């Protein structure tokens, strides 16, 4: 799916809402995973990211005002590759990951989101969708800047960051 045509404000809001909601819920899940695996530093970071995404949902709902947001089944959103652009790739998570890795994950997601909104703005025939989408793209680019700033505090760890001298535990 290379051209993205969303020409209806309801459909646009549904996409924007879902994008932020999925991101928020995924960060919350990741935070929980890190807690279970005793990686409190990254857990906190994911909690923070979840909170930020939660605020974005609020913003979109504000913008929607009385415009009804239609329900779209998860597989019928016009996402490239079928998953919400801001969804982080689960497989990249690691129990010993550092804030650097978490922020990089998040950064990639925000880049995909910015690109998504930008492409809608570029392709849509609906003026309201265009302006809102452009605004969202701008906002995502702000996040990217801000994440990049944040990332400076956490330089890439040296190789071996994931070394665990203990073997995995045998369970059931």
């Amino acid at each position, binding site marked *: 799916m290379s051209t993205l045509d969303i020409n*209806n404000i*309801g*459909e646009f809001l*549904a996409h924007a809402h879902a994008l932020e909601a999925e991101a928020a*819920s995924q960060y919350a*899940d*990741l935070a*929980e*995973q*890190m*807690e*279970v*695996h005793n990686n409190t530093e990254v857990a906190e970071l994911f909690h923070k990211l979840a909170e930020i995404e939660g605020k974005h949902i609020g913003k979109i709902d504000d913008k929607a005002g009385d415009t009804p947001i*239609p*329900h*779209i*089944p*998860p*597989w*019928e*959103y016009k*996402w490239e*590759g*079928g*998953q919400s652009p801001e*969804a982080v*790739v*689960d*497989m*990249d*998570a*690691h*129990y010993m*990951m550092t804030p650097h890795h978490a922020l990089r994950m998040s950064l990639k997601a925000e880049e995909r989101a910015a690109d998504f909104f930008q492409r809608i703005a570029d392709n849509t025939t609906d003026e309201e969708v265009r302006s809102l989408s452009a605004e969202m793209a701008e906002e995502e680019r702000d996040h990217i800047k801000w994440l990049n700033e944040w990332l400076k505090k956490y330089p890439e760890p040296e190789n071996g960051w994931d070394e665990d001298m203990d*073997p*995995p*535990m*045998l*369970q*059931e």
Partner: protein
Amino acid sequence: MTAETALAPKHSPRDYKSDIKPVWCPGCGDYSVLGSITKAFSELNLDPENVAVISGIGCSSRIPAYTDCYGFHGVHGRSLPLAAGLKVARPDMTVLVASGDGDGFSIGGNHFMHACRRNVDLTYVVMDNRVYGMTKGQASPTTEPDWDNALTPGGSGISPFRPLVIALAAGANFIARGFSGDQNGTAKLLKEAIEHPGFSFVQILSPCVTFRPDQKTWKDDVHDAAVDPTDEIGRAARRLMTDDGFNTGVLYKGEREAFQPPIGEATATVADLEGKFAL
């Protein structure tokens, strides 16, 4: 679909998640499968109390406790008969069975064949990571013969079997393959599988990042099935036999009637039964 006309489901996917935190390794494909399952339930508008998630033992089989539906975490390999008993006794429940490739194809292999054949209206989800995760990485029936591990150094030397082909031969009524990296696509497969009457088998390629980090490349290997699902068993057989194992989508849809003997309709009393023994 027209977005405007769709009604929001009664319950969001979150509503089907329990507050028990999964113990899976971060990065494990099973997290995403849990997401697919809850999305499918939500889209199907099911009330959580009318859904049961049944499993055996394994990392993947931990799923029931992570849902807020009725659930049963049974013993290793026996999820299918546990679920069949529930469904036959309670046809009003929607029953989803969750398993792993060890639980489902090795220790539970016999039940797999007979569940396909019996065709009780169940949806059987096997999270296939080609390894025993829970017991620290041994070869399963779907593991490559040369995959080195502590128990069979240098590899098991045994060819993996093809669960989808077996399901077809044994009589499964719906056969599909999904990938955990495609949460939404897999949710759609699950919705279709649950809606389809009879025994529906969905293999979900779900990487084990701990014992099979090599499986991270699966995201580049999977591809949508090139053709639509068939209801023609001969075609399905050819397709599944020649398939590279990474074709995703609905691959076969049959028309067999589900097995559901009537229950709850009495035509006689216990006294009538006793009468047959009386002289």
